[in-house]
């Protein structure tokens, strides 16, 4: 294991978030068992009070998740000089089998916390808390995932041994490789770009529809998720080339480095906010059938659609500008 303040901080944050989420899940089990909004018993009153505790915990958790996610990628990137052959986070994460699963699970848990808070916000708008059961059932699924993330992060960092020869980002994302990432990198540029622009256009149109007429939230959620994936694929296969201005460099992590003004942090944040807002808007759609939520949900969905619209539009505008101003040409 490499002994470094950032690694200690990441282990601490993973353990703390998993601990808090497990605590919240225990309250979730109590709520699922004993929740009865018609009762005025002391137990029900206590459970109602505990829901505000769980909301607060999840609010903090999202904040911790976001800081830890950025720090995780930054640390993986900063550790690359310790490994022969690693040139950025792409190589460092590949040093052992825990790196990429830990990153993907971190990303998933952050998205899940964001979506949970959206549903919670919708639920708290009305007094009969109609979404309590699905909300707390979700917590019971999220807690083991957080524990698994802690295990993967710990496994990754304790398994790091400086000097291990790893594939660098040049070979991992260099195309002509049998790996999944290499496959993405070698995708033909035109279809990848076209897919992204088509998905982004549909998302923007759907977001506009939801905002203007309050319809099409499911389409927005599906299109938002497809845009998220298409944007990642296009970033690796096409946009990165325009940003790095090197025809062979496809790495999605080097975007975070100082040399490119950390543009990756902005691009990934926009994508995260855009896709969470789009997915959240669609996720709330089935709940509109509940009478008490029927009045409050449309306005929340509209606000989410607006957030998705601006995030995806800014992302699209940024990458398009980069492509137009870059000296790289296919």
């Amino acid at each position, binding site marked *: 294991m490499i*002994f470094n*303040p950032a690694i200690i*901080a990441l282990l601490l944050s993973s353990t703390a978030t998993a601990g808090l989420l497990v605590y919240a899940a225990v309250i979730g089990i109590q709520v699922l068992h004993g929740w009865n909004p018609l009762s005025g018993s002391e137990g029900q009153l206590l459970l109602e009070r505990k829901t*505000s505790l769980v909301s607060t915990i999840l609010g903090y958790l999202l904040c911790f998740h976001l800081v830890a996610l950025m720090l995780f990628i930054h640390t993986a990137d900063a550790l690359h000089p310790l490994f022969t052959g690693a040139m950025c986070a792409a190589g460092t994460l590949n040093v052992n089998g825990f790196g990429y699963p830990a990153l993907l699970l971190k990303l998933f848990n952050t998205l899940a916390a964001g979506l949970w808070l959206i549903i919670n916000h919708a639920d708290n708008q009305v007094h009969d808390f109609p979404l309590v059961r699905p909300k707390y059932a979700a917590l019971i699924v999220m807690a083991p995932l957080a524990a698994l993330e802690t295990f993967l992060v710990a496994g990754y960092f304790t398994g790091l041994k400086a000097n291990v020869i790893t594939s660098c980002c040049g070979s991992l994302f260099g195309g002509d490789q049998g790996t999944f990432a290499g496959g993405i990198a070698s995708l033909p540029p035109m279809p990848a770009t076209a897919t992204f622009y088509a998905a982004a256009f549909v998302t923007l149109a759907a977001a506009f529809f939801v905002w203007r007429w309050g319809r099409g939230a499911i389409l927005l959620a599906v299109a938002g998720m497809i845009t998220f994936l298409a944007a990642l694929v296009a970033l690796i296969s096409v946009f990165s080339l325009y940003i790095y201005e090197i025809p062979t460099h496809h790495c999605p992590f080097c975007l975070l480095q100082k040399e490119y003004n950390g543009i990756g942090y902005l691009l990934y944040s926009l994508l995260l906010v855009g896709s969470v807002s789009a997915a959240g808007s669609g996720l709330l759609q089935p709940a509109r059938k509940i009478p008490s939520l029927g009045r409050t949900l449309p306005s929340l969905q509209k606000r989410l659609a607006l957030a998705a619209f601006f995030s995806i539009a800014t992302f699209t505008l940024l990458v398009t500008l980069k492509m137009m101003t870059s000296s790289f040409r296919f």
Partner: protein
Amino acid sequence: MTCWLNRQLNILDYTITSLLRRWWKNLSLIFIYSVLVFVIGSVMFFTRAMQREAKLILADAPDLVIQRLVAGRHDPIPLARAEKIRSIRGVSAVSPRLWGYYFDRINGANYTLQGADDRGLLPGDIDIGAGIARSRKIEAGDIFSLTDSNAIPQVFQVRKLFDAASDLLTVDLMIMPTEDFQSFFDFPADRATDFAVSVRNPREIATVAGKIVELFPDSRPIMKDEILRTYASIFDWRGGMMIVMVAMAVLAFVIFAWDRASGLSAAERHEIGILKSIGWDTGDVLSLKFWEGAVISLTAFLAGILAAYAHIFLMPAPFFSHALKGWAVLYPSFRLTPYVDFSQVAVLFILTVLPYLAATIVPSWLAASVDPDAAMRS
């Protein structure tokens, strides 16, 4: 949105007045909190700045150093090997280096002695580092005596002192002509301490190193990358060790914060009771508690981080330098280049603010969910 923002601003406004009303009670918490941020921040700023310093200095180090090992120990390398190494494709230059250590009985310090002919030194001349000059109280032009390997005193004239700006590299360095070096240490004329090898393409360094070992199996190649990696690991390790030692203090702080947050005074309970009876709900009181934590954390975090910055970059890090730098009789005096980046602030946040927030969530909720009637009666 504006309504929500106004609500939060009003709660924040109330929080600050409420904190100021009990400033003496919060001061001790903020002080302990800042000290913790200061200690962890100092360790991190210092180790990162040292890593950067090492990286900048080693940028000029040779691509490859070739040593010879005899029975597992470093031994002078025959000069004849230089030609063969030079003929390897990709090698641009091979320069034999002569250097060694000298123990000075007068002040108990170790000097680094180097033999070099490219500095225009005449026989009997010597250039010395500022640290040696300080400790032996000599200046340029003075006579300087050293005892050679046969215990015979040798006299040198100090030609010049190295610039104080290069202290980190030259504080204990002495450079003399090659012949003086060889006679001083009785060093064989057909040997060198090691070879500095330059390689045209940095990607070929490992291949060149492999070829040299193939040619001379008793040689040990040391790549620049390896040296950089070792320095980075050393400072990482030292920083990590200090953080683990400070972990006990963090734990104590967490218990203190927990205790403070859960032990509400009668006045505070009364205040929450009144707020709830005039229409604040549990969520509002939780917001109040959130802003209370945010104001305290931000104040302590900023105070601690500024103090750590001043400690490391404006002063010569008096509290930690011995533990983190290592020590020597002649230690270079140097000022670290200020360098703080996102990751250091994020690490500091996770190591200090996260435990505080995590420890106060449940007590804050307990405080916020008190029954107004019971709270006011108490």
